[in-house]
C-alpha cells in the first residue's frame, strides 16, 4: 500500500498547556522506535517487542542519557489497532514544551510527522472503519467546540449509520417487491393501493431527510461558524464594532494562519456561536474601504457571507453609498446596525425598510449600548431549532450532497406515481436513492436487489 515503509507520528491531543499529552506513532517501526527511546528508571530496556498488545508500560523517555519525561507507553499490535498497523501511544506529563522535545526525538529515530488526518486515512485504507466513521473522525480532529465533538462521537457510534441503513432497508424492500411484480406479473400485482403505500414510504423518508438537513444547517453553523461580513460606508463605525467584539472576547480570539479561507482574519464567539469575520483586516486598515477595495471585492465578500452586519449612521439621512451597499446585501441574512445613537437620531428603526428589509438594532458602539440586543438577534437568526446532542446530523458537504440527491430521487418517485408514469420507472429513482444513501456509509449495491427478490418473494415456476 501507500508509504508502506513509512512510520508516522504526531501529537494526538489538542495543543495547549494541559498536564498530559499523548504522542502517537504508527507503522512498522513504531515499536522499534519506542523500544529505543523508552527505558526504565534504571536505564534498562522495556523489551516492547515481546510486550502483549494493549499492554501499558511505565518508563522514561531518554535522549541519550538524559531523561526528558516520565511516561506511560501503550502498545497496540497490528491489526488490532486504530490504524491497523503497529501503534504506540506515549502519554507524557511534561506539557507542550516537553511534548515537542519527545516528538522531535521520535522523528530523529525514523518516523515522519503525520499529515493531518493521516492516521484516519490509514485506518480507512486498512479496513478499520467505513467512510462515515472516517469522516466523523476527521470532524473530531477539526472540531473546535464541545458541541461538534459530541456530534462527531454520535456518528462514530453509528446513529447516523443506523438511520441511513433503516432508510435503505425500506427502499430496497419496496424495490424488490416492484421488481418481483415486473418479473413475475402472474404472481405479483402493483395495484393502486400499493402505489399509495409506496408514495407514503418515499414521502416519509423524504421528509425525514429534509428534517435532518434542516437541523443540520444549524449544526453546520455551530460547527464551522457563521461567515460574517461587516459592511458599511467609511467612518460609520466598522472598526469600532470589531474592537468591541474583540475586546469583550479577547480570550477566545483565534487567528488562523495558513487556513484556506484566507479572507477570514478573526473568529469571535457569541454564546457558543462562532462568527468568522471576513476581511476584517481591510476594515481595520482602511478608512475609505469601499474606494480602496472596490465594489467588486465587497460584493464578492458579501456573496460568501452567511451573515452581513450592515452598519448605518443613525444620526444622518442615508445617502447614495448606503443605498448602494444595501443593494448588494438584498438577498442575504442581514442585521442593520443603526450606530451612533449617542448623537441625535435622524434615521430610526421605523425607517430602515426604506433601504432594506432586515431586522435592525439601535447601537452606540462607542458607548457600548445595544450590544446585548445585537448578540440576541444574531443568535436567533442562526439557531432556529432546539438542538439535542442525541440527534442525528449531517456535518460534512459530501454527506449532505448525497442526502439531498437521495431526497430528490425519492421525490421523483412520488412525482412518477402522481403523474401516472409506468411502474418500471419507479425503481430507477428508488435505486438511485438507495445508491446515494449507500455512498454516505460507504456501501455499494451490487447483488443486494437480487438477493432480496429471492429471499422475500416467492418467484417463478
Amino acid at each position, binding site marked *: 500500500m*501507500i508509504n508502506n515503509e513509512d512510520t508516522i507520528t504526531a501529537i494526538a491531543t489538542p495543543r495547549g498547556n494541559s498536564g498530559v499529552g499523548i504522542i502517537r506513532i504508527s507503522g512498522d517501526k513504531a515499536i522499534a522506535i519506542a523500544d529505543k527511546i523508552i527505558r526504565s528508571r534504571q536505564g534498562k530496556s522495556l523489551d516492547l517487542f515481546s510486550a502483549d498488545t494493549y499492554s501499558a508500560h511505565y518508563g522514561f523517555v531518554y535522549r541519550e542519557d538524559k531523561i526528558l519525561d516520565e511516561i506511560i507507553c501503550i502498545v497496540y499490535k497490528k491489526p488490532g489497532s486504530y490504524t491497523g498497523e503497529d501503534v504506540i501511544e506515549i502519554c507524557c506529563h511534561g506539557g507542550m514544551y516537553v511534548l515537542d522535545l519527545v516528538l522531535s526525538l521520535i522523528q530523529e529515530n525514523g518516523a515522519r510527522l503525520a499529515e493531518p488526518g493521516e492516521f484516519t486515512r490509514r485506518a480507512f485504507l486498512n479496513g478499520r472503519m467505513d467512510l462515515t466513521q472516517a469522516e466523523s473522525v476527521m470532524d473530531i480532529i477539526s472540531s473546535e467546540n464541545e458541541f461538534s465533538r459530541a456530534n462527531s462521537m454520535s456518528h462514530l457510534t453509528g446513529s447516523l449509520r443506523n438511520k441511513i441503513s433503516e432508510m435503505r432497508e425500506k427502499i430496497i424492500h419496496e424495490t424488490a417487491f416492484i421488481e418481483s411484480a415486473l418479473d413475475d406479473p*402472474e404472481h405479483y400485482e402493483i395495484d393502486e393501493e400499493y402505489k399509495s403505500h409506496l408514495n407514503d414510504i418515499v414521502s416519509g423518508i423524504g421528509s425525514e431527510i429534509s428534517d435532518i438537513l434542516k437541523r443540520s444547517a444549524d449544526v453546520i453553523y455551530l460547527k464551522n461558524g457563521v461567515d460574517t461580513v461587516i459592511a458599511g460606508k467609511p467612518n460609520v463605525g466598522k472598526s469600532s464594532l470589531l474592537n468591541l467584539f474583540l475586546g469583550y472576547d479577547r480570550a477566545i480570539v483565534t487567528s488562523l494562519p495558513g487556513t484556506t479561507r484566507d479572507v477570514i482574519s478573526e473568529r469571535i464567539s457569541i454564546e457558543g456561536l462562532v462568527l468568522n469575520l471576513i476581511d476584517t483586516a481591510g476594515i481595520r486598515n482602511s478608512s475609505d474601504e469601499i474606494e480602496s477595495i472596490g465594489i467588486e471585492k465587497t460584493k464578492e465578500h458579501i456573496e460568501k457571507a452567511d451573515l452581513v452586519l450592515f452598519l448605518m449612521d443613525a444620526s444622518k439621512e442615508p445617502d447614495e453609498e448606503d443605498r448602494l451597499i444595501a443593494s448588494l446585501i438584498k438577498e442575504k441574512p442581514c442585521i442593520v446596525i443603526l450606530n451612533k445613537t449617542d448623537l441625535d437620531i435622524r434615521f430610526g428603526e421605523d425607517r430602515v425598510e426604506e433601504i432594506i428589509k432586515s431586522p435592525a438594532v439601535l447601537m452606540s458602539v462607542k458607548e457600548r449600548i445595544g450590544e446585548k440586543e445585537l448578540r440576541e438577534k444574531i443568535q436567533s437568526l442562526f439557531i432556529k431549532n432546539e438542538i439535542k446532542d442525541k440527534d442525528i446530523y449531517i456535518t460534512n458537504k459530501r454527506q449532505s450532497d448525497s442526502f439531498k440527491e437521495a431526497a430528490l430521487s425519492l421525490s421523483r418517485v412520488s412525482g412518477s406515481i402522481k403523474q401516472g*408514469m409506468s411502474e418500471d420507472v419507479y425503481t430507477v429513482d428508488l435505486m438511485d436513492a438507495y445508491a446515494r444513501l449507500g455512498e454516505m456509509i460507504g456501501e455499494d449495491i451490487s447483488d443486494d436487489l437480487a438477493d432480496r427478490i429471492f429471499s422475500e418473494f*416467492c418467484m417463478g415456476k
Partner: protein
Amino acid sequence: MIIENYEAAVIGAGHAGCEAALALARNGIKTIVFTVSINSIALMPCNPNIGGSSKGHLVREIDALGGEMAHVIDRTFIQSKMLNKSKGPAVHSLRAQADKAEYSKEMRRVLERQENLDIKQAEVTEIFTDDEKNVTGIKIRTGIEYKVKAVVLCTGVYLKARCLCGEAITYTGPNGLQAANSLSESLMNLGIKIHRFKTGTPARISEDSIDFSKMVPQYGDVPVVPFSFSTDPEDVQKEQVKSYLTHTTEKTHEVIRRNLDRSPMYSGVIEGVGPRYCPSIEDKVVKFSDKESHQVFLEPEGLSTDEWYIDGMSSSLPEDVQTEMYRTVPGLENCRIVRNAYAIEYDCIPGKQLKHSLEFKDVHGLFSGGQINGSSGYEEAAAQGLIAGINAAMMILSKEAITIDRSEGYIGVLIDDLVTKESSEPYRMMTSRAEYRLMLRQDNADLRLRRKGFEAGLISKEQMDALFEKEESIKNEIERVSGINVKVTDELKEIMKRAGSTAISTGVTMEELIRRPELSYDMLSPVDPNRPDLSKEIREQVNINIKYRGYIEREERQISQYKKALEQIIPVNINYDNVSNIRIEARQKLADIRPETIVQASMIQGISPSDIQVLMVYIKSMGSRS
C-alpha cells in the same frame, strides 16, 4: 483415426449449440455439431415457453444480432402474449408457448439446410490441445478424432447428469437421454474447474385426466406480435391454444410437509445447488410457509401430444407422493402422470474462467456457452451460444472478438454477470439485473445491436440499410413534433377531455403533449395534419423516446459515467501479492479472476469498497513509479 477435418466443432445441439453452430457456419467456417441424440436437437426438456420477462428481451437481442431462435419460435408457437403490457415499455416482455416437437424439428431443418454445417450423432469424450494450450482437435466415443481450430462447449445439463425422483436415481440426461460421462474429466485435465448445479421440472399429465372446468382459461393476445424484427406480423396471426390457471391448496401443502423426509433435496441426497428463482414446490411450501396457496399454470406441450406441463409444481418427491400431491389441486383430482417430475444434477463450470468473449482464459480456441456456464433457461443458453459461436468464428477469421457491454444489451449483462460474479446457483436473467433497463427495451433491440450483428457477419448489407433508414425516420419525426406549436382547436380539446388530460392554453409543443402520461403520439394524430405516414414500429419508437426522455437521459448519464469508470484499467502486470493491506480473501479473488477494470473488480462478490480503495491507490502508485 481421422476421417474428416473441420475448422470448428460444437459439442451439443441444444439452444446454445444450434446458435453457435449457425453463427460459425454462416461465417463460412466448416463446422460440425455433435449431439448425443439426433432427436434432441433444440429440445425443450422443461417448460414449453420461449420468452417471458427479460427472456423475451434476450430473444429479441439474439434476433438483432442475426441468431435463429426468434425465427423458429415465430413459426412454431401455439400461444403468444405480451406480458406487462399495462406497465412501461421497458418491461414489456413477449412470451410464446411453443409446440415443442415442431420447434425441435424446425430448428433441425435450419441446421440441416445450412451450408458449411454438418450434424453428427456422437458423444464427444476428449478435447486435445498442443503444449501451449491451443485447441487442436476432439475425439468421440468410437475413437474417431477430428482436427479443429476451435471448440464450442454447449453441453447443457448432460455432463455427468443424474436424475432424481424420490429414492429413484438414474444416471441419464433429461428424458432418459444418454449422459456425457467422459468429457468432464478431459476438461479437468485441461485445468478447468468444475462444479455441480441442479435444476428440476414438474410432471407432465395426460389431457383426458384433467378437469378443465375447475380452472380459469388463459388466452393469447390478438393480434400477436412476432419475436423477429424480420417476421411479417401478418404471418403470425393464427388460432391459438388456451392454457389454464389453477392453484395449490392447504391439502397440497399438507401432503408435501408430511413427505419432506422423502425428498432427496431435504434428505441430503442432492448435492447440487438449485436455483432460488425456480424453486420446487417443496421449497415454496417450506420457505414461504405463510402463503396458503401458490398459482399453478397448465400449458399444453404441443398440438400433436396429449401431455400438459404443470407450471409451478416442479418436484423431486417420489412418484407416489407426486401423484397424491398433484391430485389435491382443483381440476387434477383424477390426474394421471405421463412423465414424473424430477430433479437433475449436472457438471458445469464456474464462469469466471471465461473471458467476455466466452473463450476460456487459459485454453485458446475453447469457447463455452449455455447451461454449462452456470445459467438456466433456453434463451440465456441461446444468447451465450450465439456469442461463443460468433467469437469462435472471429478467432478463426483472425478478427477482434465481439463483446456486448452491460449498457448495450441484456446479453451483455448476462455474460458479464456470469464471467465476473461468483455464482452459487443457476443464473436466470431478470430485468432487475439490468442497470440500464429503460434503454435496453425489447422494442429497440435492433437499434441497439444490429451493428454488432453486422460486424459478426450475421446481418446483411440490406438489413443494415433498412436499419439506417429506420433510425433516420425516428430522429426526423422526433425533431418535427418538438417544433410544432399546438393550436388549441375543439378537436384537440375533445381528445384531451376523453383522455382525462388537463386543458392547455397556447404555446405548448406537440412533444410536450405526447410526454403527458395519459396522451400518446398516436392519439394526437388527428390534430397533426402534416404527420408523415410511418410504420407502427417507428411510431412506437417516437412515442417511447419522447415520453421517457427525462428518465432515459438520467440513465444515459449514468451509462456515460459508468463507461468513464470502465476506462480505469487495472494493469495486466499487477501482482496482487504486492498489494499489501488488502484482505487475504480479496487478494485471492482478484488474483483468481484478474478483472480488467476497476468496475469489474468492484462487482466481484466479496470485494469490499475499502479493498477497491486500496487497489485504486496501489494502481495510482504503480503509475507514478513507472
